[in-house]
Every structure is written in structure tokens, then in C-alpha cells.
């Protein structure tokens, strides 16, 4: 349509307003289209980076979920395990299990047991922690002493690298960690099924170890669990109560303004500052043990508190005032109007804020470094006061190690951490949908 086609005689102050509008229209639509294109571009770039990050972690980390193990028939020699015949626990603990396993491997590889070199070389194929499984079995099943029992025992990290194809065979033998002879044994054992890749349960159950094949996130998982429990038990009630008071009861004056500003500022304080605070207050002043997940939980609770308070206040403020008025109008007390109406309506927002706060706390490393949770902890912590590590700290510690096994474990543990975070975020979405009520 052209401007000429429009009947003249507009009454407004601008004579040919319609044609002017038409002239501008093209430019306005073009601007809109450009803006949409920018938006799509931004999303595509963001997604691309996400894909790259995930792909690289997956690609490096997926191998950590399988682990090379030897299937060996170990003769639980009574002479070695229980020479005194008394079944003394101490004897059982210190017995030379590695020798038993090595002998089993030598036998399985059909080597000459009298050749000391071959025996030594075969022993190098086994993890230095391969005996743990056998010892634990013997301690639990003493009646099996003197019998031959099949075991899956951990192969050495180098063997694992060979099996996973990460071992560089082109390096001259003298500078290689495995000799040609050993590589030959590994190849034949892998071909015959004596050596196999199995699902790596140890990754989830083992504690710290200097050998990658026997290192796991067991201790870190328990530590993180204790810390999350501490955060939930402390930060959620305190945070929700503080938010309720500030939003519903507190007088609006200078003091509450200052408190509000400070809470918002606290949310932006670098987490390491909370670590220093935790070190000064909980460890130096209150005398709580170092490396304890309780202290970690307290520090993370402090760190999460502002997030929960801000989210809860926003959720409470979003409840329409008409609902409060309705409750007060029929004679509900202030507390009743809050507990019966405001809080239930605010629950989805509170849950979302809490879970996002928890997820942030779960991935936090810096403050835990300050309170000594970067520790080499082998034993499972039984209480929150026992030394423990946390998932992100474990990742940090593995990331500094050079062995191939630790490199893949770094990525593997990162995947596990990401899976936990994803689960928490999905849970937040589900809970929000579940509790959301429309009015």
C-alpha cells in the first residue's frame, strides 16, 4: 500500500501521519529482527561452550568409570596368613598377602616361579593396594584360609593405562615404566580374559590413595554429605526465620535497612573470606578439629545463609498482599496468616533458593582449603568431627597429580559432581512445579 492510496484528511496535528508511520515500519521491523538474531547468536555461543566443556570432561573422564583388574585364583596359604594357627587378628592383618597374589599372578601367567626377575616384574603389574580386597575377605571369612578363592584384584595404574590405550609404547624401553616383557604379558592376559576392564566401584568407595587405581571419592562423598546435612540443618531454618522476621515483622527503619544491605553484600563476599572466618572462629577460637566436615558445614552454612535469606524474602514478598489481608480480615493473627497462607505460598521459591544455595555450597572449594579439608584421608569419617574431604576438594587434589589415572579420575569426579548438581537443580524445578499454586 502506498501513501497516496490513503485518503487524506487526518484530523491530528501531523498531516500525513500514516505515511510517516509506514516509512518507519521497515526500519522498526529490521531492528526487531536484528535483536532476535543477536539473542539466538548469544544462545548458540553459550550452548557451544557448554557442549565443548562437557565433551572434553566426558572424553577425558569416562574411562575412569572402568578399571583394569586381574581375575586370580589366590591360594590363601595357611602358612603365610596364619602361621601360628591361633587365628590371631594381628597375624591376619600383617600377613604377606601381596606375595600370595603375586604367586597367583605368576601362576596364571604361566611364568617360572623360580625366576626372581619374572616374579618381580609380574608383581609390578599389581596395584600396591591389591591386597586390601584379599585381606578384608580373609578377615571376614576365616574358614576360607587354606583354600583357593577367585578374586578380582586391582591391576597397577600403568597396566590400566595400557589396557585403556593411553600408554605410549614408542618410548624406548629403558625410559618406559613397563618393559616389553610386561607389555607382552599384559596383552596376552587381556586377550585371554585374565585381565579385564570392570566397572569401577572403587572410584565411589575408596578413600585417598597415592596410587590412582585405589583412589576414590568415598571419603569425599561422605564428607560432602555431612556438610550438606549441616548446611540444611543450620542455614535453612535460620535463613527462613531471618527472612520471615525481616519481611513480615521487622519495623522498616534505618537499622533494618542496614541489615538488608549487609545481607545483600554478604552474598557477594568471596567464599575464601568465609574460609578465613571459619578458621579464625571455629578452629582457632572455638577449638573445633581441623579438616572436620562439621567445620566445613558451618562455613558453608554461613556462606549459604545470605542466598537463602534473599531467596526467601523474595518468595515471601511475591505472595500477594491480598492473601494476607484476607487472612487478617477473617481474624487470623499475624502468625497464623504467615504460617497458614504466606509460607505455604512461598515454599516453591524458598525451596528453589535453598537448593540453588546448597548446590553452590556443594561445589565450593576455596573456604574448605582454609580449614584444612585438603587432607589425605583414607578412612571413612564416622562422625562430622572426623577428618574428611569434600568432592570439589578431592577433584582439586587429583588435578595436581600427574599420573594418567589421576587425570581421568579428575574428570570422572567432575562428572559425578556435575551429576549431583544437575540432580539438585532438577529437584528444584520439580519441587517448584509440585508446590506451585496459582491464584
Amino acid at each position: 500500500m502506498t501513501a497516496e492510496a490513503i485518503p487524506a484528511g487526518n484530523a491530528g496535528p501531523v498531516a500525513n501521519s500514516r505515511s510517516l508511520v509506514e516509512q518507519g515500519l521497515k526500519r522498526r521491523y529490521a531492528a526487531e529482527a536484528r535483536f532476535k538474531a543477536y539473542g539466538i547468536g548469544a544462545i548458540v555461543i553459550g550452548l557451544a561452550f557448554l557442549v565443548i566443556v562437557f565433551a572434553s570432561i566426558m572424553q577425558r573422564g569416562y574411562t575412569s568409570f572402568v578399571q583394569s583388574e586381574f581375575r586370580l585364583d589366590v591360594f590363601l596359604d595357611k602358612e603365610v596368613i596364619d602361621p601360628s594357627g591361633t587365628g590371631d587378628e594381628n597375624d591376619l592383618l600383617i600377613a604377606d598377602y601381596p606375595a600370595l597374589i603375586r604367586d597367583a599372578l605368576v601362576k596364571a601367567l604361566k611364568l617360572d616361579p623360580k625366576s626372581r626377575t619374572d616374579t618381580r616384574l609380574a608383581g609390578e603389574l599389581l596395584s600396591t593396594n591389591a591386597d586390601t580386597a584379599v585381606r578384608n575377605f580373609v578377615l571376614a571369612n576365616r574358614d576360607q584360609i587354606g583354600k583357593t578363592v577367585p578374586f578380582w584384584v586391582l591391576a597397577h595404574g600403568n597396566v590400566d593405562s595400557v589396557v585403556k590405550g593411553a600408554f605410549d609404547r614408542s618410548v624406548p624401553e629403558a625410559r618406559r615404566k613397563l618393559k616389553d616383557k610386561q607389555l607382552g604379558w599384559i596383552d596376552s592376559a587381556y586377550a585371554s580374559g585374565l585381565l579385564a576392564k570392570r566397572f569401577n566401584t572403587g572410584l565411589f568407595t575408596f578413600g585417598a590413595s597415592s596410587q590412582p587405581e585405589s583412589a576414590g571419592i568415598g571419603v569425599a562423598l561422605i564428607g560432602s554429605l555431612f556438610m550438606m546435612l549441616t548446611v540444611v540443618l543450620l542455614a535453612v531454618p535460620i535463613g527462613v526465620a531471618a527472612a520471615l522476621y525481616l519481611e513480615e515483622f521487622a519495623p522498616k527503619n534505618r537499622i533494618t535497612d542496614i541489615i538488608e544491605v549487609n545481607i545483600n553484600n554478604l552474598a557477594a563476599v568471596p567464599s575464601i573470606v568465609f574460609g578465613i572466618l571459619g578458621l579464625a572462629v571455629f578452629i582457632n577460637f572455638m577449638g573445633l578439629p581441623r579438616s572436620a566436615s562439621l567445620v566445613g558445614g558451618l562455613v558453608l552454612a554461613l556462606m549459604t545463609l545470605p542466598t537463602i535469606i534473599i531467596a526467601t524474602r523474595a518468595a515471601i514478598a511475591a505472595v500477594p498482599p491480598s492473601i494476607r489481608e484476607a487472612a487478617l480480615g477473617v481474624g487470623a493473627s499475624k502468625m497464623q496468616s504467615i504460617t497458614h497462607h504466606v509460607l505455604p505460598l512461598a515454599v516453591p521459591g524458598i525451596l528453589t533458593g535453598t537448593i540453588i544455595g546448597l548446590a553452590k555450597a556443594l561445589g565450593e572449594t576455596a573456604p574448605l582449603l582454609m580449614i584444612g579439608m585438603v587432607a589425605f584421608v583414607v578412612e571413612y569419617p564416622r562422625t562430622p568431627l572426623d577428618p574428611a574431604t569434600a568432592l570439589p576438594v578431592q577433584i582439586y587434589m587429583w588435578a595436581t597429580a600427574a599420573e594418567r589415572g589421576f587425570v581421568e579420575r579428575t574428570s570422572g569426579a567432575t562428572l559425578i559432581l556435575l551429576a549431583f548438581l544437575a540432580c539438585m537443580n532438577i529437584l528444584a524445578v520439580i519441587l517448584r512445579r509440585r508446590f506451585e499454586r496459582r491464584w
Partner: protein
Amino acid sequence: MDGEIGDRDMDMSIQSTQTKPAAKPEAATAPKAAPKVVARDANVYYGEKHAIKNVSIEVADKSVTAFIGPSGCGKSTFLRCLNRMNDTIPGCRVTGSIAIDQQDIYDKSLDVVLLRARVGMVFQKPNPFPKSIYENVAYGPRIHGLTRNKAELDAVVEASLKRAGLWEEVNSRLHESGTALSGGQQQRLCIARAIAVSPEIILMDEPCSALDPIATAKIEELIDELTQNFCIIIVTHSMQQAARVSKRTAFFHLGVLVEEGDTNQIFTNPTDPKTQAYITGRFG
């Protein structure tokens, strides 16, 4: 509401009759029975703002009193003083005396929860709780412990919904959400909720302003019936509505109670020129 039927059809054109000069002060024809609500020199401040200035009024029991006036004239503010809903607004201050049944409701010894159980309120925008229809009505009796068992509560809910004229429409779906009802039904649900605690006074703050004419007509009919049992004070923007439902009308302007009297008289023969100007549509 006898004697009011003729007013229902009152049209704005009727008000064109000239007013007499203001001969009598406000509230010249006081209600005969003891007034339910008596305000003496009530002042309301929102911080620095003087929202209500020296309002004195008497409101009769078992009748409908309408507060009219232009936006921002303080009629809603004054209404909200009567159940101390203004307490929730920070910086709001009330002076003077407002008494219900000779008892000062701003007295320190008076319990505000008890007051609100006696003075129900219906708000401008229907605000049912996001709960079931049943729960909406049962909430008041439950928190006040008015019923001893489920059967009694059921009876109260049914009676309240019947009085609010909603029973026929919702009795088959009492456990569906109250927010799923239409706007007019929601407002009647809110009235049922207010009735359920057996108040003495029901305050209505522009109860029909968010409703269509048919829903409005139903609410007005309902107000008519409720007046047999309750003292009703209604704030309205619609002068036709005030004329239709109320027995007495109070005209507020800029926080001042300009004139209060029989609805008939206010609309046909207002004493104050400002009232005259407002009801004939010259301002506001």
C-alpha cells in the same frame, strides 16, 4: 430495605434538581436505635499525610451505609480503620475515637484479632485463598474454634455458602480450588468466608469494582438480604450502586466527611454544594 425499592431505578438525571442551601449540619437525621459504630473526630495520618480529617459519623446496625466520594478521598482508609486493617500499613496513625457498641476499638485493651472476628471484611479484588472452596469458608471458624467437630463445621460452611447465594453453584465441587471460580463467584465466596465467623459488621471495600454487571447485580441482591442480620458498610465508586443498596450515604471529599444522611436525601436533595457537584457528575 423497605422504602428503598424505588431508589433502585434512580438515574443520574434525577439528581438535576437544585440543592437547597446548606441549612443543617451533617447527620441531622440520626438513626433512632443505638448506633453500631460511632466515630468522633477520627483522624488518620499516613506518615506526614493527613488522610482523614476529623470524621465523626454514626452507623446504624442492620442497615447498609455507603461511603462515596472521588478516588483518594479517604473512604477506603476510613473503612479500614473500622477493623484496624490500617494497622498493617507502616506509618499509619489514627487519633480520635472509633467505637463499636460503645467500645473504643483503638483502646489498648482491645484485641485486634477479636475485633476482626467481629468485623468482617470483603475486599475490592476477590481474594480467595488458593485452597478449596470448603477450606476457604471453613478457615475462619477453624482458627477461632467456633465448631467442635466436622459435622458442625460442614453445617457452618453450608449455611455460609447458602447465605452468600453460592451453595447451589458449588455444592457439588466444594473441594475444588476457590480460585477456579469466576470473579463474581469468588467475591461471593469471600462474602461467605466473612459470614462464616458470624461477624456483627461486614465492611465491603468496593466489592463490585472488579465484576461485570450481572455479578454486580447478584452481589447487590446479596447485600440486600444480608442487611437483615448484619451491619454493612460499603465503599463504592458507583453512585448508582450506593443509591441502589444503601439506606444511608456518606460523602467523603479530600479526607473530610462532607455530608452524611439518608441515601434518598443525599441523592435528591444534598445540603452541601460539593455533594451536589459530585453526584451530578461535575467532578470526581
